[in-house]
């Protein structure tokens, strides 16, 4: 296999965000929607208006527990939500409600791949940057659609048990089928109800040590995931072969050009 590049082997872990197929959002009673006119499914809670308070969606918690049972995880007897604070226009409260040290589920496995944890969180709103850059820096204006804001997500984090792009793609398909059978999500990558980030590092084959990893963000199709991981493995191999070292950073894969670029720190902060 090409990405094992002789004596080096790839070590891959995945972080998968699954949009839960509940009727309403994670912390309010607004309906979930896709493709509706912007800002038509909002309320004081998901807009983060002053004085509003979140109330956890019982069905989302139930779905999270079902995922944990399907993956053979240990279900937390007591689980708490935390605030992840950062400033960004797609985050109306200035923090995302997520889970930190007491996630809903810990451990488990699917096939050969061990599960690190499963936790619940809310999705951010959708930002569109107007202008040539397509990014917030240098845009003429940015507009926010809060319909998606507050959508319930289950984040599934694997242990670094995958060894190739193909294996990662295959495993992700198994996870998708499992989630679909459970009925907890549409797991549709085009609509963003299944999103995947990959942590990738290289090490000497057979070693127990982990190398320095990079994080490849938000790949939105199975084909792109495999291509992206393959491209990043090749990039790291080339770097190491040239006597360089991998630095820990967050990367973006552009499926059109096949290029991998580093995300700027301000954008990186929001992950």
């Amino acid at each position, binding site marked *: 296999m090409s990405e094992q590049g002789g004596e080096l082997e790839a070590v891959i872990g995945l972080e998968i965000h699954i949009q839960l197929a509940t009727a309403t959002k994670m912390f309010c009673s607004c309906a979930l929607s896709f493709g509706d006119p912007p800002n038509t499914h909002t309320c004081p809670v998901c807009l983060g*208006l*002053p*004085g509003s*308070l979140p109330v956890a969606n019982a069905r989302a918690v139930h779905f999270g527990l079902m995922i944990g049972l399907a993956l053979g995880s240990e279900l937390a007897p007591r689980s708490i939500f935390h605030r992840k604070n950062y400033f960004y226009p797609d985050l*109306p409260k*200035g923090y995302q409600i997520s889970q930190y040290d007491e996630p809903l589920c810990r451990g488990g496995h699917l096939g050969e791949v061990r599960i690190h944890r499963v936790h619940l969180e809310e999705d951010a709103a959708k930002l569109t940057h107007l202008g040539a850059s397509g990014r917030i820096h240098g845009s003429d204006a940015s507009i926010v659609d809060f319909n998606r804001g507050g959508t319930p997500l289950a984040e599934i984090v694997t242990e670094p048990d995958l060894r190739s792009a193909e294996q990662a793609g295959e495993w992700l398909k198994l996870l998708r089928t499992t989630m679909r059978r459970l009925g907890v999500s549409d797991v549709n990558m085009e609509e963003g109800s299944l999103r995947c980030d990959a942590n990738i590092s290289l090490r000497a084959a057979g070693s127990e040590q982990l190398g320095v990893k990079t994080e490849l963000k938000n790949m939105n199709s199975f084909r792109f995931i495999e291509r992206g991981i393959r491209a990043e493995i090749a990039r790291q191999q080339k770097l190491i072969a040239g006597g360089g070292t991998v630095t820990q950073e967050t990367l973006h894969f552009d499926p059109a050009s096949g290029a991998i670029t580093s995300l700027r720190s301000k954008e990186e902060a929001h992950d």
Partner: protein
Amino acid sequence: MSSDLLELTAAQAAGRIAAGELSAAALFAFYRERAAADRAGGEDGLNCFTWVAEGAAADAPAGSLGGVPLAVKDLFCTRGVPSQSGSRILEGYEPPYTATAVERLREAGAPLLAKTNQDEFAMGSSNENSAYGPVRNPWDRSRVPGGSSGGSAAAVAAGLAPWALGTDTGGSIRQPAALCGIVGLKPTYGSVSRYGMIAFASSLDQAGPLTRDVRDAALMLAQMVGQDSCDATSLQFPGEIGVPSAERLDGVRLGVPAELSGEGIEAGVKEAFDRSLEQAAALGAELLDVSLPHAPHALSAYYVLAPAECSSNLARFDGVRYGIRAEGAADLLDMYTRTRHDGFGPEVKRRIMLGTYALSSGYYDAYYGRAQRVRTKIAEDFAAAFEQVDFILTPTAPTVAFALGEKTGDPLAMYLNDYCTVPMSLAGIPAISIPCGLSGGLPVGLQLAGAAFSENKLLDAAHALERALAFDGSPAHV
């Protein structure tokens, strides 16, 4: 007629309306005029209000509160009415929804009369941190009314509103009630919904009544308590809040903690407090010494926890969706920075910085985690004390009302105002302040605290003491 109306407590006014002897519209008009005059009075007024109803009450559904108009602290969201939490960053902000506590009181027959001035985001003990100017104390216009519910307290004390709604995070109902010579109750945490209260410190904030007497406080509280599906921390109050009627304290055990009633308490306050203890004994109460060994650390823990929570709660004021937005910013970060620079006052900025530091990576456990452990110790102290006594008595505030400007340059001196009230807030237990006498012509408050959900018994004990103390609640100038 006018002076006659001014004499009525809310309960008495509701009774007259129910008996057909007084029209709700006339009562509303009477108070609306008084409140509007204060608002129009500028320097001559007390500056109690940030908004006053323009005409008759939109609607005053018949209910047990009978149409008695209500003044509401600015930080409660009121649909279509400015709700600014005393801050410039929310100048002119009109929410699309009404806070649960205000809505419940309206449905029970208390129409919205006015919004009251407060310290910005409820951070302060003198009402001098308001973007809308300081409130004056009706007992002495050169002095502060206390804070942060200073506008609510001064309005009730001056007869500009029959009663008012406030919030208490570390003493923000009880301390201004004490400094203005009225009754203020902080209920058990979770008994009143926080939905629609612009948050300061979510694990401490509680809504409660500021009233002329204990009976009015019970009447208002009865309509506020209860679980709310919009506030996951709200609880079903066990039983109903009744009308307090006790006149004796026979068999009631009252604990006096040395930690909160000795050092740092002004002599005049201490004298009034000691006289109250004598009255309590005369009513049949048994007075006992109790110890709250961790209470002296309460203020330190509070000034880690409350700023930590506020630094997160106030992150949403970023200029993106509501409130003011700084013009001419170069980019997103510049817009955030300038908006928050222009929109927040100095005390709010101080606490956001303290809180952000306390929560920052690597310091979380040393500050926030440790303060939480102190909080647990304080709650355990109270639990142990309530094994021995029914209620704990302390002075509400260490001093009487101080001069405007006297403590604005010294934040630590300002924070000491809440020395006696913060421990109860950290423990989440109910506490009431009732006026217990004068020192140098200024009111002194007596605080009674009870175990969680002991409001009925607490109000009864406060009622008996109130009758015996017979405080004359009219400031000289009204």
